[in-house]
């Protein structure tokens, strides 16, 4: 029950979101009304033609003369009939155009909102989620909403209106026959909704099975080698079989139950068709009603079943859509980064003096990992951050760049607290090269200019020379206009060099570097080292250090372990301390004898 309520709420939020299109929606409804009116009027015209013929036939039978039909009237009615159906078509299609327009625009606007939202959410949001999940909201969920709206808005409107209109029309024609047809509505609806509910349950199960299948297939296919060598294929196949069996079972039930609505509505239609024929027939024999009326009623009763099954289908779709929209709107209503529009102060003339003062931080409020960290760096210093994997070296970067805010204490640049200026202002002063060589799809030039749009081509070429990018760029087709894509043939090392060039072009007074180069061959590694040295020259730099040479030459070394800063000082000081750093450093030169 609470779930139903939540889903309903999500639909209301969606409706509220559509408010900005209300004028078009109202026009759409009016057009639908117009269309339905004429759709319903159509069979009535046909009925009048049949009646005109019936009268003539009955007259001829009564008089014994040949049939003499009033063709003037028939032509007149025929033309009206054609016009009626044409108008119905215009109304219906007009409504469809309005609604599809609204749907497309609403989907677009949802996607835009989400794209903007993405850049306003704190990073902690993404830490807790997988990229795939967020992506799926932007594409799949919005798509589901779009498709449902497109199909349902139009159909739902015309279905409800048709039901009403047909009921009224039949009541006018013959109230007895109308009541028969109407009596079938609640019965059909009741059965249909039960079936829909049941099929929905199996459908959900099937989707869960599919999700499981997806996960299992992904896991197995990406590790076929390991699985085979460890004889895990037996286990993998058994697991697959059990998921596959569930899927077979749930899939077949889901197909069956969702397929049932069609025979059921048809049967209801046929039953009311038969009963109307019986009752109408008896009434006609007793001269209470006419053949044309029966034919019209039969046609109308068929028009009754169609909207009913549509309403049932739509109610399923709406459930899916409401689940999707609850995900979309909960994403859109996530807590954003703190507002900073009121901040007017700016950090100016940065030489590279940074201070950490009593910094306290934890990714979770209840799990503080940095308790009281103090540090002063002076212009031009090289600060190395070292420690084993998972020690929290990136935490330092996160705090410096204000990807996260400190819980207590502050970081100041040139004496100005970073919390008191806009984030963009802090970030402008840092150039960053991370281990993750992120480049976007676009030309090399676009990528290089990413951090500073007004960089000139000379500046860019100069930076590429210093970072050893020029050689390989010039070998590419189109050179600087070479289009990078996911599968473009750049090596990891070349990508790394490009990110270094990008940082250099940015011309920021301070640098943050992660120098891990494990996936790069030695020659490229040498190039990268040189490029990084060229980049750091004369700048204050924070380096997540892996190379001993970097660490030893640093002005300051921050040693981290398990998320906490445990030692600071330069190489010599730390070696004297004989603490964790000394241990770490010595371990790689431990003599063979020591270990065995």
């Amino acid at each position, binding site marked *: 029950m609470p779930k139903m309520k939540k889903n309903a709420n999500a639909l209301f939020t969606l409706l509220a979101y559509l408010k900005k299109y209300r004028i078009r929606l109202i026009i759409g409804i009016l057009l639908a009304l117009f269309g339905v009116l004429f759709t319903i009027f159509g069979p009535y015209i046909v009925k009048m033609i049949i009646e005109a013929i019936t009268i003539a036939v009955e007259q001829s039978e009564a008089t014994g003369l040949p049939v003499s039909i009033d063709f003037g009237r028939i032509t007149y009615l025929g033309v009206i009939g054609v016009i009626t159906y044409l108008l119905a078509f215009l109304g219906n299609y007009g409504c469809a155009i309005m609604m599809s327009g609204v749907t497309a625009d609403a989907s677009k606007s949802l996607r835009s909102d989400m794209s903007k939202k993405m850049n306003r959410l704190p990073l902690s949001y993404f830490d807790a989620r997988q990229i795939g999940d967020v992506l799926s909201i932007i594409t799949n969920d919005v798509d589901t909403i779009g498709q449902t709206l497109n199909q349902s808005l139009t159909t739902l409107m015309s279905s409800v209106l048709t039901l009403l209109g047909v009921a009224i029309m039949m009541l006018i024609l013959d109230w007895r026959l109308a009541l028969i047809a109407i009596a079938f509505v609640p019965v059909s609806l009741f059965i249909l909704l039960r079936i829909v509910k049941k099929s929905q349950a199996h459908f959900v199960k099937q989707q869960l099975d599919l999700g499981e299948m997806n996960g299992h297939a992904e896991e197995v296919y990406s590790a076929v080698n390991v699985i085979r060598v460890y004889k895990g294929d037996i286990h993998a196949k058994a697991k697959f079989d059990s998921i596959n069996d569930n899927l077979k079972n749930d899939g077949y039930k889901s197909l069956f139950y969702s397929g049932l609505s069609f*025979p059921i509505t048809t049967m209801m239609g046929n039953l009311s068709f038969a009963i109307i024929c019986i009752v109408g027939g008896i009434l006609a024999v007793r001269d209470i009603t006419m053949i044309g009326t029966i034919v019209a009623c039969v046609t109308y009763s068929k028009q009754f079943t169609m909207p009913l099954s549509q309403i049932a289908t739509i109610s399923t779709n709406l459930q899916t859509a409401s689940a999707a929209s609850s995900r979309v709107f909960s994403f859109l209503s996530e807590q954003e980064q703190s507002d900073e529009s009121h901040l007017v102060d700016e950090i100016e003339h940065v030489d590279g003096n940074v201070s950490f003062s009593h910094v306290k931080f934890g990714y979770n409020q209840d799990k503080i990992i940095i308790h009281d960290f103090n540090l002063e760096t002076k212009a031009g210093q090289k600060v190395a951050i070292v420690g084993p*994997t998972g020690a929290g070296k990136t935490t330092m970067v996160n705090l410096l760049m204000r990807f996260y805010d400190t819980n207590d204490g502050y970081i100041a640049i040139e004496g100005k607290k970073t919390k008191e200026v806009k984030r963009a202002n802090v970030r402008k002063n840092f150039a960053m090269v991370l281990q993750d060589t992120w480049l976007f799809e676009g030309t090399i030039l676009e990528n290089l200019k990413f951090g500073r749009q007004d960089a000139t081509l000379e500046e860019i070429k100069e930076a590429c020379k210093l970072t050893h990018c020029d050689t390989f760029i010039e070998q590419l087709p189109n050179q600087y206009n070479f289009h990078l894509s996911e599968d473009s043939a750049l090596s990891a090392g070349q990508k790394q060099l490009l990110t270094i060039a990008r940082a250099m072009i940015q011309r920021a007074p301070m640098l943050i570097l992660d120098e891990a180069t494990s996936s790069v061959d030695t020659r490229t590694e040498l190039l990268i080292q040189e490029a990084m040295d060229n980049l750091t020259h004369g700048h204050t730099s924070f380096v997540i250090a892996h190379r001993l040479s970097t660490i030893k030459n640093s002005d300051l070394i921050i040693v981290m372990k398990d998320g906490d800063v445990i030692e600071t000082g330069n190489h010599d000081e730390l070696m004297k301390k004989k603490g964790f750093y000394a241990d770490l450093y010595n371990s*790689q030169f431990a003599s063979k004898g020591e270990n065995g």
Partner: protein
Amino acid sequence: MIRLLGKMGKKGAWLFALLVLLAAIQAFSDLMLPDLMGRIISIIQSAPFYESSIGNLATDVFYTGLIMLAFAIVSAAANIGVCYLASNLTMRIVSKARKEVFDKITSFSMTELDQFSTSSLVTRTTNDFSQIQTSFNQAFRFLIYAPLLAICAILMIIRKNLTLTAVTAVAIIILLAFVLLIFFIAVPKFNSIQKKTDRVNTVSRENLTGIRVVRALNAEQLEEDKFEVINTDLTKTQRFVNRSTGLIMPFMNLIMGFLSVAIVWVGSYLIQGDTLELPEMTAFTQYATQVLVGFLVVAILFVIMPRAIVCAKRINEILKTNNSIIEGKNDNLDGLEVGTVEFKDVSFTYPGAEKPVLDHVSFKAKKGETVAFIGATGSGKTTLINLIPRFYDVTSGEVLVDGRNVKDYRFYDLFDRLGYVPQKGVLFSGSLRFNVCYGKPDASDEEFKEALDIAQASEFVAKLPNQENYQISQGGKNVSGGQRQRLQIARAIVKKPEIYIFDDSFSALDYKTDKVLRAELKNKIKGATLILVAQRIGTILDADQIIVLDEGKVVGHGTHKELMKTCAVYQDIAYSQLSKEELANA
């Protein structure tokens, strides 16, 4: 599609025959309804002449009506039966074919796997089958019933009146032409919607994966603008497709409406000319609708089918792929050496490539030895290692394990001898113990604990919630890179193989752990042969043999000390990582 149909099996074939029968019954019953209505109407018409016997006529109407009711129920029952059989048959086929696909893929070697991306294989196992499931189900339900209905209805109406049949035919042709038109306009756009959605995906993914970089460079606006361009593009196409598909229903109603007007209009002339009776005409309007609906359903199915056919082709592509690595037949394990790996003049060229990745490589690792491979990326280290468990087969030369060519072994006999630890951390969803004991599910507690000890994993495992029952998530994302590598190493140890193969499996460990782990390996697992690939010189300093590879050729072979004197490539690597002084200390 036809190939897939074959998967229904013998029982399925009987069910299918039953389905055809039921569909025929359903079509027949549906056709009887308008005919019966026509009969009722003729009874009514005759009423004025039999004023006296109105009661009898009413009874006639009533009984004809009852027959109608009976047919309506028979039709519904048959329809429900068809529906049941269709879903049963569909799932029968889908589930069988899906299993074949899965089994086939798990039997693939790298050569076959390289032809498909993992995501494409996953799509083929799930999405493609979902598509086929929907299409097959619809085909089973309607593709027999609808044509049957349409054909029989045509036969009925032709008998009744040729002129009106011609009118109906015109309506059918218009409708079919229209469906085809929409098909040719909209279907290509469907594909382009898919592509544009992919673009939206790519750009969002880019923004998400690079979120730190985007923020660091204050490039949020830039990304949003980029997104807006493709978003607008996608919306435009979507709107077009929505508009053209939105046309279908109103147009169908229009044609049906026109047809009913046309029939009575034309019919009035025929009645005047005495070539048509009134009840026939009313029945005709009903039949005409059925014919129209029948054709429409078939047309729509043909519009839907191409997508399923594409999926079926993709699935067949997998089933038709030939396995390039064939299991050996020699299951006699007597008289084999123990713990040796030998390459005899091995060359390897990737299928379709021109340059060999390995060029006449020879070496022999003896029992208990450590043989290390080092070289730049692309020098062929990983490829070399992949030849031992037959992820690929050599292009020329021989790979021998325990003195026998790997091609002659039964797969499991070969795999039993090997403990392979891959480069990227591969763990499976399941408990930590399940992962460690993956190659030997019946391992004892002692074996499990010892493996963790040697792999330097005991300490962190003890700190995890639930320890050995800690649930590893898919891909091992909830343990760190270093922990993943250690668990993988433990997994190899539990198997107690003669030969360990480490493909750069220490890279995420810090120097200290790396060192201790390898020392423990040497100590505790006496006599095992270690084949290892490394990037870090520190990892291989004390190997018995170091083989330096450069562009697939062996350019150095010896111990660290020897190579420092003789091999320029090795010196380059060494100096890039450690200072002279540090190397001297080592």
